[in-house]
């Protein structure tokens, strides 16, 4: 259990090769050069009083409470802004200082309401603490003069309030918003006594640029900026360290609790991925975990048109086991399979794939990474030898040029987005390759050097053009390539890429990017110092997703941008545990640690530990499962925490496949869209109830700790153990840590991982084994995992999804900050305040041609289906391209997307669909049907005594 208060050293840590020794209150202290006196004192256990300083932001020196005496210097310098000097002699406590500090406090308190006993921050207020520390006993100035006591509260934000009557104008919030978050939403308006914090130009927080990250709330020393949950419940009494369950940044949090009620989530300063920062989702949007829609009891039904019946765990498990075995008896061993979830822990995922391989006796297991980052797996394995990002997040602090492709980090990976912005403000350069003008192209104090606004589907042509410039203008790092890469593969790649058809000039009509801009961007990446590639689903979700990943790897190898800090090829993973679910052997062709099932030696190790014969043939991937289901050879599916009926492309195809199955089991928090096609529902646990690990985009294995007991009575992995035991394959663990021990035993890159080590070190990045007992922040440092780096030829092949007279526009999809993917969680929180429905962004020109106005209902149709949603006129997309999110099931964005997919991995081509947009005044046929089916198929029968079914 973590202590409720984390140490605040007052000013940020400094790193220096030079150590400085000084004397503080008679103690000899040694700290890195550049450290403030305040921090040096704190490290020696002396807490100098302070108000405007906190260690997450640079010191400002405004409150004057932290003054100290320095021998040989006049006056009383502020310890937060004064750096240490060798031999300095400092006194932090003298009668002069005491008197001065009391005077300062007296002024503060004279304009502060004295309602401490009923103040929500009572007990956690630095002003209150400091009044105590300086021994304030009286306030000579009454409240008769001008004051701010009647200033009005701003309660517009759903998660925190702003009560200006309590503000001491310390500007910690302003600096947190600027330095930590990089949004610059807050200012101190007015001067002197009239100074007041303001969000935008007299706007409420909700109407301002604020993105609700909460950094200001965390930085505020008083009750001015305060979580509403604390106002409601009071102060927490204990804290538990855990990990956010939303995105692949994997922020560490301290769940601050009263008993087993979460009072607030506070990002952990010690968190390797986030270092004390978070976004609106992780910090505030956890209310879904106890939302009224959650299902806590197992349920079964004979047919999907029947109402659900609540039963005991025993009955549900027995029923599921019997139905799965019946399907296998009738249709063969390979007729059932499972899908693992990137929302679940490594341990939960590992047992599901073990269930499929050892108990079902086939390899029909896949994971939702199929529809997002499977091309990363393929592409990076081919070129570098393993499926993982090469860097840790901190590496970006040494990056000089960021090449950001098909990702929108300020929305999708906000905490890393803030870190990028920080580095960009320090002078690093940015190249954005994206059809959409994402916020990073231009935001306060950040401007991309180049925005390569390419046509959707032209990624490979564009990456080839960049490489062409590098090869033909002599910008290849020949020494790196000669030492580190396979010469035969390099030579043929060089010959290929140098061909004129790959030049920026020839590819310009395909990419839409002016050749001169492309050339300038290529030169910048190759010669601007440390170049790092960051990318997202705008790379992978294409018919050439895998080719594009290899194209980026080629670029990094050719310029020597791999194997040290500041460089690399980095997938920004979507979900919290995408990396982990892939590592755990969720792909139908690979056992944990990315080893092919046909490898006899690898299989035999598993066979011995699992005491089961394993199938050497690859199993079905998710889209193949749907195809096989419609063909009648795949009849039973276990779906762990994923909503395939909403998230997978071509909804009609998915739902008809689900309807064709005879046993669909869903394990989830809610009766999601997939559950409307299920026969058995196992209630799942939220991250607050889980014990295990998540692995983030930088391969960092973080602990997820239980802050409350599973509300369903069983951990998810226990349910799997019970199910396979009932199927005749006994499986048992006492706890999640034993599952990790088995993973470590069977997976060379995890060999050194254990809960004990994670608890001791906080987190580790795999590979973690005898060669790297504390993990590996950077990959491919001395050589590539596969030996020599392999350049791969990346011929541009246009997608078969083409615009036509009937479908003249290209639809591309993405997500926004406040919602998470299918929205199952975030739609059940106050985050809906920011995004109540999915919106179609249409370019003004395309809108005008169709007579569309902002806010009109429009029909969006492709050759496979149609839906109706509201349009927003926006020039963020180039003409001819429309954009929407997929956070709301009723929009059914995937009713429109097609069956096209990546050539190597079948990752769906979500980013390119030919569509038409027309004005509409009614929901689509699909939406009408969806509403009525959904209501019927979610009905739960009144409780009745359990009966054995069938």
């Amino acid at each position, binding site marked *: 259990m973590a202590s409720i208060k984390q140490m605040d050293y007052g000013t940020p840590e400094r790193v220096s090769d030079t150590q400085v020794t000084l004397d503080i209150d008679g103690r000899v202290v040694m700290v890195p050069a550049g450290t403030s006196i305040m921090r040096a004192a704190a490290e020696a256990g002396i807490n100098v009083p302070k108000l405007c300083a906190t260690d997450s932001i640079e010191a400002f020196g405004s409150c004057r409470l932290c003054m100290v005496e320095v021998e040989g210097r006049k006056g009383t310098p502020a310890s937060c802004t004064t750096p240490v000097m060798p031999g300095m002699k400092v006194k932090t406590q003298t009668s002069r200082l005491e008197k001065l500090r009391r005077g300062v406090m007296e002024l503060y308190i004279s304009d502060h309401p004295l309602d401490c006993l009923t103040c929500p921050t009572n007990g956690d207020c630095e002003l209150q603490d400091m009044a105590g520390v300086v021994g304030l006993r009286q306030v000579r100035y009454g409240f008769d003069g001008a004051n701010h006591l009647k200033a009005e509260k701003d309660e517009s934000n759903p998660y925190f309030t702003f009560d200006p009557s309590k503000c001491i104008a310390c500007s910690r919030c302003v600096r947190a918003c600027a330095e930590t978050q990089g949004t610059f939403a807050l200012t101190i308006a007015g001067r002197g006594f009239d100074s007041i914090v303001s969000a935008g130009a007299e706007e409420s927080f909700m109407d301002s640029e604020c993105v609700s990250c909460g950094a200001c709330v965390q930085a505020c020393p008083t009750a001015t900026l305060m979580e509403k949950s604390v106002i409601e419940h009071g102060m927490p009494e204990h804290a538990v360290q855990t990990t956010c369950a939303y995105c692949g940044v994997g922020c560490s949090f301290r769940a601050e609790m009263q008993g087993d009620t979460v009072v607030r989530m506070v990002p952990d300063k010690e968190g390797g991925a986030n270092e004390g920062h978070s976004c609106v989702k992780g910090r505030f949007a956890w209310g879904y975990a106890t939302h009224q829609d959650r299902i806590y009891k197992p349920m079964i039904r004979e047919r999907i048109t029947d109402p659900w019946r609540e039963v005991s765990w025993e009955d549900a498990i027995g029923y599921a086991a019997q139905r799965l075995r019946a399907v296998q008896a009738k249709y063969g061993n*390979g007729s059932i399979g499972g899908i693992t979830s990137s929302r679940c822990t490594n341990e939960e995922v590992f047992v599901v794939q073990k269930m499929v391989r050892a108990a079902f006796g086939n*390899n029909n297991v896949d994971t939702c990474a199929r529809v997002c980052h499977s091309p990363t797996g393929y592409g990076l394995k081919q070129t570098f030898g393993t499926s993982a990002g090469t860097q840790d997040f901190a590496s970006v602090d040494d990056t000089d040029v960021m090449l950001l492709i098909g990702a929108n980090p300020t929305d999708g990976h906000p905490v890393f987005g803030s870190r990028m912005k920080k580095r960009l403000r320090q002078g690093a350069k940015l190249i954005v390759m994206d059809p959409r003008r994402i916020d990073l192209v231009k935001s306060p104090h950040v401007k991309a050097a180049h925005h390569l606004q390419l046509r959707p589907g032209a990624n490979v042509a564009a990456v080839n053009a960049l490489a062409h410039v590098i090869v033909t203008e002599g910008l290849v790092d020949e020494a790196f390539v000669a030492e580190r890469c396979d010469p035969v593969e390099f030579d043929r790649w060089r010959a290929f890429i140098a061909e004129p058809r790959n030049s920026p000039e020839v590819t310009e009509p395909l990419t839409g990017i002016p050749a001169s801009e492309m050339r300038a961007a290529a030169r910048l990446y190759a010669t601007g110092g440390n170049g790092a590639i960051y990318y997202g689903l705008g790379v992978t979700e294409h018919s050439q997703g895998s080719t594009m990943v290899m194209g980026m790897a080629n670029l990094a190898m050719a310029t020597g941008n791999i194997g040290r800090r500041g460089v690399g090829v980095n997938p920004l993973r979507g979900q919290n545990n995408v990396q982990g679910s892939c590592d755990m052997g969720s792909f139908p062709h690979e056992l944990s640690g990315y080893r092919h099932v046909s490898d006899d030696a690898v299989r035999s190790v598993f066979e011995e530990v699992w005491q089961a014969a394993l199938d050497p043939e690859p*199993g*079905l991937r998710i889209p*193949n499962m749907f195809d096989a289901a419609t*063909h009648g050879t795949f009849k039973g599916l276990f779906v762990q925490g994923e909503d395939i009926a909403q998230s997978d492309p071509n909804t009609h195809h998915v739902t008809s496949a689900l309807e064709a199955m005879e046993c669909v089991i869903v394990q989830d928090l809610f009766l999601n869209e997939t559950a409307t096609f299920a026969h058995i529902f196992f209630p799942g646990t939220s991250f607050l109830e889980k014990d295990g690990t998540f692995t983030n985009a930088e391969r960092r294995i973080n602990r997820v700790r239980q802050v409350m007991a599973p509300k369903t009575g069983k951990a998810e992995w226990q349910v799997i153990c019970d199910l396979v035991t009932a199927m005749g394959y006994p499986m048992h663990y006492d706890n999640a840590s034993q599952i990790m021990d088995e993973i470590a035993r069977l997976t060379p890159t995890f060999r050194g991982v254990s809960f004990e080590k994670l608890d001791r070190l906080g987190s580790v990045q795999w590979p973690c084994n005898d060669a790297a007992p504390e993990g590996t922040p950077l990959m491919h440092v001395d050589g590539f995992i596969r030996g020599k780096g392999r350049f791969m030829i990346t*011929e541009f092949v246009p997608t078969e999804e083409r615009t036509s007279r009937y479908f003249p526009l290209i639809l591309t999809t993405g997500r926004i900050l406040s919602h998470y993917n299918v929205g199952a969680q975030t739609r059940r929180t106050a985050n809906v305040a920011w995004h109540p429905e999915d919106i179609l962004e249409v370019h003004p020109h395309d809108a005008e041609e169709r007579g569309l106005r902002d806010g009109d209902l429009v029909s969006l149709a492709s050759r496979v289906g149609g839906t109706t949603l509201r349009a927003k006129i926006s020039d963020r997309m180039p003409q001819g391209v429309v954009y929407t999110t997929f956070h709301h099931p009723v929009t059914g964005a995937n009713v429109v997307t097609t*069956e096209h997919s990546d050539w190597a991995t*079948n990752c769906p081509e979500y980013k390119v669909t030919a569509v038409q947009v027309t004005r509409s005044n009614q929901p689509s046929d699909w939406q009408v049907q969806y509403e009525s089916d959904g209501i019927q198929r979610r009905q739960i029968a009144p409780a009745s005594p359990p009966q054995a079914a069938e």
Partner: protein
Amino acid sequence: MKSTDMIRMANQIATYFKSYPHDEAVAETAGHIKSFWDPRMRDALYAHVGSGGSGLDDLVREAVAVLKRGSAEGQAIR
């Protein structure tokens, strides 16, 4: 699987490897199908080739011949 989907997927693989010298392209296409396609999908592909293989890239046909030879000899291709 609809045969149009199967043909498209197989041809996509062949199209990628076509940039490589012919023998390598055949081996890589075969290897990819062997590594990533479950046996029922491969059987459907073999059956389609057996009945004329209409719509399939020549490289796919050659790869299928290699795969069939390989499975007849019981060797793993990866």
